[in-house]
C-alpha cells in the first residue's frame, strides 16, 4: 500500500433508474487515484459524471460497483454521516452547505464537532466564540462581528465562504468542491476562489474541485482531469498542466470524446 495515496477509486459504477427506460450509467467503471496534497480540478460537460463522482466519494447513496478507499481505509459501505468525519464538502447551491435557521456561530460549532460523539454538553462554548471570530476575520467579509446572525440572512458568497471554513475545520482528509462558485456573480466567485486557495494551502488539503470555468481549472491546482460519459478522458499534471490553454483543452476534448465538441462547447467555454 502506497503511503502517499490519499484516495483510490477503483471501478466505480453508478446507474440511475436502473432497469427502466430512463436508465443512465453515470459512472462507468471510474478509476482515480489522488496523492496526498493533490489539488485536482475537474471539468467536463453536463452529465459527464462530475458531481456523481463527488457524491460517490461522500456516500450520498451506495455505488453499484467498485470501491472507495480513503487514506488506506475502505469506506465503500460507510454511511454518509460517518464518512463526513474525513470529508469537507462545499456544494454548488449556497443554500445547501449551511443551516439557514441557525446562527453563524452555531453552524461553525456543528462543524467543529463533525465526527465527534454528541452529548448533552453545551452546543457551543464561550472559548469557541473567540476562535470563530478570529477565523471569520481572516475571510475579510465582516462576518466576525455577526456571530449570532442567522445564516439565512447572508449573501450567497458569504455562505460559501462560511461553508469553506466549516469544511476545513476538522482537517479533512479530502475537500470536495462541487462547482462551489458557479451560482455566484463573477466578482464574488473570484473572492471565494481566493479564500479557497488560501484555506487549501493553509491546511494542506487534498482537494477535488469541479468547475465549469476552464480558465479556473487551468489556473488552480496541480492536476486537471476531464470527465466524459462517466469516465476520465484527460488527466494532466504539473508543468504540462501549467502550460495548457483553453484552446488546448477544447481540442483535447474534441479528440478524446470523438467529435462531440460542438454540443458541449457552450458548457465548457
Amino acid at each position: 500500500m502506497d503511503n502517499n495515496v490519499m484516495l483510490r477509486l477503483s471501478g466505480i459504477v453508478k446507474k440511475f433508474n436502473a432497469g427502466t427506460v430512463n436508465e443512465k450509467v453515470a459512472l462507468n467503471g471510474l478509476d482515480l487515484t489522488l496523492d496526498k496534497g493533490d489539488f485536482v480540478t475537474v471539468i467536463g460537460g453536463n452529465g459527464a459524471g462530475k458531481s456523481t463522482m463527488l457524491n460517490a466519494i461522500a456516500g450520498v447513496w451506495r455505488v453499484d460497483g467498485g470501491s472507495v478507499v480513503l487514506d488506506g481505509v475502505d469506506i465503500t459501505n460507510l454511511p454518509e454521516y460517518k464518512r463526513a468525519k474525513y470529508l469537507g464538502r462545499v456544494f454548488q447551491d449556497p443554500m445547501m452547505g449551511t443551516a439557514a435557521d441557525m446562527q453563524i456561530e452555531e453552524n461553525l460549532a456543528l462543524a467543529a464537532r463533525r465526527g465527534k460523539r454528541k452529548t448533552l454538553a453545551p452546543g457551543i462554548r464561550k472559548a469557541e466564540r473567540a476562535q470563530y471570530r478570529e477565523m471569520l476575520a481572516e475571510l475579510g467579509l465582516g462576518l466576525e462581528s455577526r456571530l449570532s446572525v442567522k445564516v439565512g440572512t447572508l449573501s450567497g458568497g458569504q455562505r460559501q465562504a462560511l461553508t469553506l471554513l466549516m469544511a476545513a475545520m476538522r482537517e479533512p482528509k479530502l475537500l470536495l468542491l462541487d462547482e462551489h462558485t458557479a451560482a455566484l456573480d463573477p466578482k464574488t466567485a473570484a473572492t471565494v476562489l481566493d479564500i479557497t486557495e488560501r484555506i487549501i494551502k493553509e491546511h494542506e488539503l487534498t482537494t477535488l474541485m469541479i468547475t465549469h470555468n476552464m480558465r479556473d481549472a487551468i489556473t488552480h491546482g496541480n492536476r486537471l482531469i476531464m470527465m466524459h460519459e462517466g469516465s476520465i478522458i484527460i488527466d494532466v499534471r504539473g508543468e504540462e498542466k501549467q502550460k495548457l490553454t483553453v484552446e488546448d483543452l477544447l481540442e483535447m476534448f474534441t479528440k478524446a470524446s470523438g467529435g462531440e465538441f460542438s454540443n458541449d462547447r457552450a458548457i465548457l467555454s
Partner: protein
Amino acid sequence: MGNFIASMPSAIAQGLIWGIMAIGVYITFRILDIADLTVDGTVCTGAAVCAVLVVSGVNVWLALLIATLAGILAGCVTWFFHTVLGIPAILAGILTQLMLWSINLKIMSGANVAVPSRSYSVLLTQMNVPMALVFLVITAVVIIALLYLFFGTEIGCTIRATGSNGAMSRAQGINTNLTKLIGLALSNGIVALSGAVLCQYQGFADINMGRGAIVTGLASVIIGEAVIRRIGKNFAVKLAGVFVGSIIYWIVYQTVVFFKLDTDLLKMLSALLVAIFLGVPYIKKQLSGRRKGGVVNG
C-alpha cells in the same frame, strides 16, 4: 357578562394544557420540519394510559411518567415507518394515528374511562381551577426551561440542524435518522403528557379527545408566533409564545361557546386559520420571486 369573565380562568387552564400539546407540535413542525399527524392519536394514548393506571391505584406521578413513555413509543413507531420503511412522514403519522385508535380502545377497554377527582387523588381538576392554574403554570415553566436547555446542547443542535438542512447535517456527520428519532419521540412524549394532564383535569379519558389536535396545535403555534414576534427571538420566548397562542385559542373558543355561536364551525375555522397563515408567506414569496427573477446574488 360576569359569567363570561368567570369562565376565563378555565379557558386559560385549557389553553395551558393544550399548550403542552402544542409544544410537541412545535418540536416536529417548526424544529424538525416534519408535520407529524401521530399526535391526534397520542393525546388520547397519554390520557388513556394515565386514566387506566390511576383508576387501578397506581401513583399519579408514576401514571404520568408511564403515559409519557407510551407517547414516546408512539413517536418511535412513526419514526420506524418514516425512516426504516421509507414512508413519507405525513403518511407514517397517519398510520400510527390509526393504529393508536384501536390501541386506545384496547387500553381503555371501551370508548372512555372516568377518573372523578372525588374518588381519586389527581394532580389537578376543573373543580378547583385556581389550584389547577398554579400546577399548570409551574409545569409550563419547567417544560420551557428543560427544552430551552436541551436544544442548546450538542444533541439539541443536531436536531435543529436536521430540521433546517438535512443534506448539510449529514455532510457535517450528523446521523439524521437518529436526530429524527429523538425529535419524534420527544414530541410525542410531550403530547402524551398533555393528554395525561387533560384527563385528570376534566375527569375522564375519551377516544375522541385528540381529534384535530394537530390543527389546534398548529393554530396555537401560529397565533403564538404572531403575538410574540415583537417581543423577541429568544428560543424560550418562542416556546412561551406557543402557550400564549394556545391560551388565546381557548379564550376564543370559550367566547364562541359563551355567546352560543355555532361551535360546530370551530374546527373549520381553526383549519382555515392554519391554511391562511401557512399560505400567506408562500404566496408572498411567489410574488416577490416573480419580480426579482430568483437570481442568487453575491
